[in-house]
């Protein structure tokens, strides 16, 4: 069953076209990676899906979620979808979280808005979600402020908020770029486990090919606003058709080879 269908999505800032005629589909439970350099339009594409494009951007085309048109919905209409049917995790958890609000309350927010839960019940559920995303001592965590947590813990909170209402689609935009490598691995594994057990679909946006290929089944390679290649991970690594995609694969392969050559660690 097709969960998300993006057709001919074009985003302009004035006369500048930043996303150019992008189309892709996502089946329920499927995981799609979007990879590209900075400025390639990968973030704007994902923001369009969740209705968070800046006011100055003009978007055309069609975005269907479960057959329902999202394009042109008012902010008000969108607010019943955002955080409910689509959840999103951002790159920098310190700026994505409200520094003045205890994290328990922030996780409770979507539950109160979309599920009509009472505060106490919602906070109790927030503690369960904290445990779910692997935070130790959830009772204490829900009472803390973002600055009292480490980067990895904050990103887990971001994940708890995004998944609070069991969305059918999770969008993760560079969720581990701001984290240390050892923490990155844990958070990636967590996202993978949660998405699988919830049966959600995933759009994973990143500039890092090894990370994307470990998270997604299919990858869309974006360059200056266009999807230049859309292929299964294995196809992409086996025989990328587009030159740019091939360059990305080669670059990743080279640094992988360097590492293998030195560490002599067999491929899995």
């Amino acid at each position: 069953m097709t969960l998300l269908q993006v057709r001919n999505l074009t985003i302009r800032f004035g006369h500048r076209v930043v996303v150019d005629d992008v189309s892709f589909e996502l089946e329920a439970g499927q995981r799609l990676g979007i990879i590209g350099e900075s400025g390639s339009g990968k973030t704007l594409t994902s923001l369009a899906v969740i209705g968070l494009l800046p006011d100055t951007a003009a978007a055309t085309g069609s975005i269907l979620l479960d057959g329902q048109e999202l394009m042109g919905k008012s902010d008000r209409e969108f607010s019943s979808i955002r955080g409910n049917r689509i959840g999103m995790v951002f790159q920098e958890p310190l700026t994505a979280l409200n520094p003045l609000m205890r994290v328990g309350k922030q996780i409770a927010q979507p539950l109160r808005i979309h599920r009509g839960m009472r505060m106490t019940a919602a906070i109790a559920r927030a503690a369960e979600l904290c445990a779910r995303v692997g935070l130790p001592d959830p009772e204490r965590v829900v009472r803390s402020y973002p600055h009292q947590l480490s980067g990895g813990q904050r990103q887990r909170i971001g994940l708890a908020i995004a998944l609070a209402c069991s969305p059918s689609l999770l969008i993760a935009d560079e969720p581990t770029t701001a984290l240390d490598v050892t923490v990155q691995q844990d958070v990636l594994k967590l996202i993978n486990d949660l998405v699988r057990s919830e049966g959600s679909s995933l759009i994973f946006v990143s500039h890092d090919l090894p990370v994307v290929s470990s998270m997604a089944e299919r990858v869309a390679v974006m360059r200056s606003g266009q999807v230049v290649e859309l292929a299964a991970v294995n196809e992409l690594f086996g025989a990328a058709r587009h030159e740019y995609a091939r360059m990305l694969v080669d670059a990743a392969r080279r640094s992988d080879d360097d590492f293998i050559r030195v560490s002599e660690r067999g491929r899995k």
Partner: protein
Amino acid sequence: MTTLLRADGLSRTYKLPRTGVRSEKSVRHALVDMNLVINEGDKIGIVGESGSGKTTLARLLLGLDVPTTGSVSFLGDKLPLPDMRQFRRQIQVVFQDPRSSLNPRMSVEDIIIEPLECLGVEESHSARIEEVLSAVGLSHEMRSRYPHELSGGQRQRVAIARALAPRPRLLIADEPVSALDVLVRDEILALISDLTANLGLTLILISHDLSLIARLCDDVVVMQDGVAVERGKTTEVFRAPSHAFTKMLIASVPRLPTGQ
């Protein structure tokens, strides 16, 4: 073999603001008892996570910060030297983000001339600019450009050109490619690799990225919380890490699918 730089029992602590009215001021040990010998021609990688003391070490080696205890010596003399200009000519640095390390109000030419003038380099400045620009693969026309007119990769090339201008013997590169896009990153790495080989530069490369260290460095120092927990030949450390933290770092490197 000449020992260029040497760190003996280097420590740096920073005072933290007190957290309550009655609480004691606490200190953060950014770097603890670091010993390091850098010989001419060495290529040393310093690897660790954020907050492990990599950059603090670089600042101390550059004489940009004063150690709490311990010392840095340059060719056998302890820092600070009476005349730091000779030191600065021979030890240059490339920082992570060229957007912030290049003065936006100076043209490329002025940026590269600045160290030549400050350090009293005698040779023809104009000729030297041409040399270093071509060494980093930038065309002659770039001389009059300003940083905002350049791409990220070009900016980092300018930063490298500036570092090379006074003919240093040691180059310290602190996360030189982590602000760059993947393909550009590859070019800059190749450039650094070529330059160190052609000019016989000694290199200290600071990074959190193990594959980068694997590519460019013969030796590696692994840091955790200000302490060098493991060091040795890169191949040996990466093949058979002995410290738990090193093992964890190596296990965390994202792997590629093989692809058919």
